């Protein structure tokens, strides 16, 4: 992999990690309403996949959507502004953390319904196929979502129509408190691909280079018109399911084990230095830039005006 790509992957991962850290502190300061779901620990997936996407490619995201949004090149200020319920937020404070979209960059939106984005990405891929473009759609979803009917119906439709879509299952080992090893009677979720007649690939979702390589193949296949792929990325979420999750269903050992044995961000750092793609000094510089950028974004967001009063029906209907 070339230096610039490697450094870019690191930048995106590090930005996501920092964003989650900052939003967590903001939440702790009671500046954020509702719930937030941290993507910390899963950064390599969004970064590795979206590196292959253009602004006119589409993604559908989840309740754990900050990482996908950032990897699809969203504006951090507008993201924070949305979390803070500002008019300057992506959704003018109407959506919040679980409902951030950035259609200008092809992010069709986070989704509060587990599995809700899977058919939507399928439909975006149908648009590309219908219009004869080489656009691609990627649907991000969790291990839990893979047991939803929408997963089944969508993968079958994409397979029979050979749609340019990649289904990326982020297996962070848990659906809220339910461990994947109990929610599935199979170890390898990617086995399900065979039942739809599409390629199934399993990769270490903590290893950004591995994700990048596997996603490159899948997205290339879709772009060439060779149909969908089911890509399962094995990973782990460092934080609770939501801010404040008591995590009764996990042991300290398990959590620490995952964090210390293979932290996607630290491993990316090590790999970059090891392979001479960048120096520690360069990476430190990136870290500083990101931290500064983050503070500027928070400041900008906090300075923004509160969400404007609702306009009914104008906010809801395009015409009424």
């Amino acid at each position, binding site marked *: 992999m070339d230096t610039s790509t490697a450094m870019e992957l690191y930048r995106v991962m590090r930005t996501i990690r920092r964003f989650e850290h900052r939003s967590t502190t903001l939440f702790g300061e009671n500046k954020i309403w509702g719930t937030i779901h941290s993507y910390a620990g899963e950064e390599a997936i969004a970064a590795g996949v979206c590196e292959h996407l253009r602004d006119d490619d*589409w993604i559908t995201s989840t309740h754990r959507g900050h990482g996908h949004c950032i990897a699809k090149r969203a504006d951090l200020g507008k993201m924070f502004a949305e979390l803070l319920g500002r008019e300057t937020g992506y959704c*003018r404070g109407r*959506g919040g953390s679980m409902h951030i*979209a950035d259609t200008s960059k092809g992010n069709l939106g986070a989704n509060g319904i587990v599995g809700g984005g899977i058919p939507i990405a399928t439909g975006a*891929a149908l*648009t590309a196929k219908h*219009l004869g473009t080489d656009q691609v759609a990627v649907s991000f979803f969790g291990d839990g979502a893979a047991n939803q009917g*929408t997963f089944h119906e*969508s993968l079958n439709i994409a397979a029979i129509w050979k749609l340019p879509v990649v289904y990326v299952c982020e297996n962070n080992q848990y659906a809220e408190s339910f461990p994947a090893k109990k929610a599935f009677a199979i170890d390898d979720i990617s086995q399900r691909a065979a039942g739809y007649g599409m390629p199934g690939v399993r990769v270490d979702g903590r290893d950004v280079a591995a994700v990048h390589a596997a996603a490159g193949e899948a997205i290339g296949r879709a772009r060439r018109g060779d149909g969908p792929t089911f890509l399962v990325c094995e990973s782990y979420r460092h934080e609770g399911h939501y801010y404040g999750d008591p995590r009764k269903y996990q042991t300290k050992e398990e959590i620490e084990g995952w964090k210390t044995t293979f932290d996607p961000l630290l491993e990316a750092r090590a790999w970059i230095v090891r392979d001479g793609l960048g120096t520690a000094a360069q990476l430190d510089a990136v870290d500083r830039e990101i931290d500064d950028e983050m503070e500027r974004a928070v400041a900008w967001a906090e300075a923004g005006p509160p969400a404007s009063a609702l306009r009914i029906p104008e906010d809801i209907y*395009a015409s009424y």
Partner: protein
Amino acid sequence: MPRTSGNALSADVISDGETREMFYAEALGDALRMEMQRDPRVIVLGEDIAEHGGAFQVTAGLLAEFGPSRIRQTPISEIGLVGTAVGAALTGLRPVAELMYIDFSGLAMDQIVNQAAQNRFMFGGQARVPLVVRTQGGSGRGNAAQHSKSLEAWFTHVAGLKVVMPSTPADAKGLLAAAIRDDDTVMFIEHKLLYRTKGQVPTGEHLVPLGMADIKRSGDDLTIVTWSREVLFALEAAQTLAEDGIAAEVVDLRSLVPLDKDTILASVRRTRHCLVVHEAIKRGGYGGEIAALVAEEAFDDLDAPPRRLAGLETPIPYAQPLELGVVPQVADIVKAARELLGG
């Protein structure tokens, strides 16, 4: 061309003069064909819509004319097909998704309500979902409890949806064309026993704006507010009532959301009597909305309480005599109208 209320809510009906007699199903097919010819972004998704031409033959002939890339026959995957249509609508197409029976909407409800209807609002107006979900409901064919429900009330209760229910072939064509050109998600609800009804339909472009009720018959003694197949029953009832000198006005809502309050209230204030008739079961039905509205806004203009005549609170039975007994028939409307007028 039907008389229209020409109320403030929306532009007038657009249509050239030429008409010919068509079946309701044919008129719907005509709208689909013309809109597909007009706009390459319009595609149709659904079950059995291709070679078979749709369970009620509405899409008959479209496969031959537009091919499988625009007449997309789907597996039996209601939430998958509706969700795929939502995604296509979000990204530039104008899909018409067919749910063969409204009874199956329980399988696709999440994509209709949480995804399509709420998208524009949730994302701060970034996107539009120009999607039409064509479906049909109603009893009368012996299809029993899982193929005969009238569920429009569910959709009227969802912020972000529009709900349309044409009663005539002309309205079917005009409203479907308007729904396809509409930038919001429209639940377009047909009635299985209207497909084979006939009427004069404009052959050229014909658009009936959403949100405009239609006075299908005027009269000064009472207002019958109704929609879908019950409009035909109400018109028959009005005929009978006329014979004993009662002049009933029949207001066909056509569009439940947006609702043409002006036409309803103007009519009720004039006739001072309001009978709301629908096929769906009464409890929790949209008739409650209309009767409450009339009570709230025209209370002092009424000479009698607003009255609802609707389906009995039961699933639709199979046996024909039973089936006929659970939804309002012409005689029931006549009787209710007489009672309302203290007769």
